[in-house]
């Protein structure tokens, strides 16, 4: 038996910790393994529940669409919010690729002018926390960037060959926005397309330039695992 006089500095906890069976415990300190953790959990007094929602299928898709764009930083209020999404040829929403963290994370509740076209198309008010986390795009530096579409829909299923619309919406200044729209064919052949800008309202252009050179390239058969995306991994306080 090992008795530890816990060097507690203050008011709480246990003043004395008595440990016994120390040598045996070393064998219990096994490295992580899923089979072991599963059996450990099932033998505990409170069996772990499995969650079918965590299953991720390994999807084979048609290829990869890279959407390239040049981003500018506008030093003004209510600006610099962007969203990328895909629709089918008939205008049905397919998937959101990325959207600025502030708006995607709920900032539109405070600022209703934030990315209204994307929010309406995606019905974002009903997005799950997991969906939100998946698309959140931290603030990017000015310059050239790329976002990728792996040719899956919002449910993670591979889409069929055909023409798809890629859209990028950006807040320039409050309700003044730019929306880039382009169409690209995905299938057996590689393709490319340049998006056209539409300013909403037309006078929005006078408030500054947020995006330019928005174009998409489809690479048939290419997998998203093979490309490096802008880092979205963060360490933040919890």
């Amino acid at each position, binding site marked *: 038996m090992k008795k530890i006089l816990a060097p507690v500095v203050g*008011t709480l*906890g246990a003043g004395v910790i008595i440990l016994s069976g120390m040598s045996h415990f070393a064998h219990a300190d096994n490295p992580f393994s899923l089979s072991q953790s599963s059996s450990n959990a099932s033998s505990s007094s409170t069996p772990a529940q499995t969650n079918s929602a*965590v299953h991720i299928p390994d999807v084979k898709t048609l290829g990869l669409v890279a959407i390239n764009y040049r981003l500018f930083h506008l030093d003004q209020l*209510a600006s610099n919010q962007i969203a990328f999404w895909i629709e089918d040829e008939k205008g049905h929403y397919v998937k959101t690729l990325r959207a600025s963290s502030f708006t995607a994370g709920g900032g539109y509740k405070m600022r209703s002018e934030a990315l209204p076209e994307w929010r309406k198309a995606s019905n974002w008010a009903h997005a799950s926390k997991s969906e939100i986390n998946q698309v959140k795009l931290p603030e990017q530096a000015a310059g050239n960037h790329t976002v990728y579409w792996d040719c899956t829909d919002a449910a993670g299923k591979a889409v069929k060959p055909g023409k798809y619309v890629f859209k990028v919406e950006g807040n320039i200044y409050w309700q003044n926005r730019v929306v880039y729209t382009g169409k690209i064919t995905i299938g057996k052949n590689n393709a490319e397309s340049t998006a056209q800008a539409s300013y909403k309202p037309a006078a929005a252009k006078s408030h500054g330039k947020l995006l330019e050179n928005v174009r998409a390239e489809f690479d048939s058969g290419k997998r998203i695992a093979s490309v490096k995306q802008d880092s*979205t991994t963060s*360490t933040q306080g919890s």
Partner: protein
Amino acid sequence: MLEFHSRHMNTNISISGLNAPDASRVFKWMSSLEHQFSRFLPCSELSHVNRSVGNITHVSRQFAELLYEALRFYQETDGIFNPFLGNIMRKIGYDRSFEQMDKRNAHREPLPLTADQTTFTFDLEQCSITLPCGSALDFGGIAKGWAVQKAAVNLIGQGRPYGLINAGGDLMCWNGATPTEPWVINVTHPYSDDQTIGKLIFHSGQWGAATSSKIKRSWSDGRHRFHHLIDPRTALPSESDIIQATVIGPALLPCEIYAKCLMIMGSREGSKWLEARHPDLAYLFIDKDGHVIVSSNLKNLCSYKNFPGKISFPPNKER
């Protein structure tokens, strides 16, 4: 690069550099631990233990293993990291998921002195514990990092050449995002996850990083400001001058533990204390005036860039 996202332990989990089956297994592992170690689920093993104060209680080997780690850090940190704060957390109102808390009915009175009068027994051979009356275990400061670290170490052991597992900012990565590209980790602004104050860049090797904050899980009852980082010396939310601390090292679990300790002890005492005890860990923290302090050894562990000497806050939310 494939990314997978899911939500467990009331935290967003993201995985990069691994395949879908591996990511599924990590998510399933995190989900199972949530059901075992949550303070907020009445059917969890932890809740069962906390209801059994004063009695010998048998626990699973996995529970015993995490408890052992918690006690090891309890001793190593002289009690600054303290897994016995379950009742304090409950008393300040943190008795359910943060989003569901009754923030208006928090209490700020410190609990009476108990530590020198109580004995906690832990029979490792029998996997049984006796929790003294008035105590409650809380693994909130350790379970997430432990879970991620074990998952990562296991995958490394199985030969996965590179990967990154991030549980709400507590992360482990190994061997760069590709053979030629490093892992780039944004350190967020304490008042806004949308803003980055700098980047940590990890090339080869195995690394952990954890960030702790007084800002994210803070609330007010109308009179006092509360947060979830309790100073065990006062039984009250820490009043140190650090508002966010990130600790970096070869493994995640010490990073998670010492980020919290740094937050509790403050800039003057905490930084010297950490440097003396763990020269293998590096840190960066932000004090209440916005100064960004980086330890001198951070450059030995990773590259970093863009960290200003001082940040402004609250940030301009009308970007």
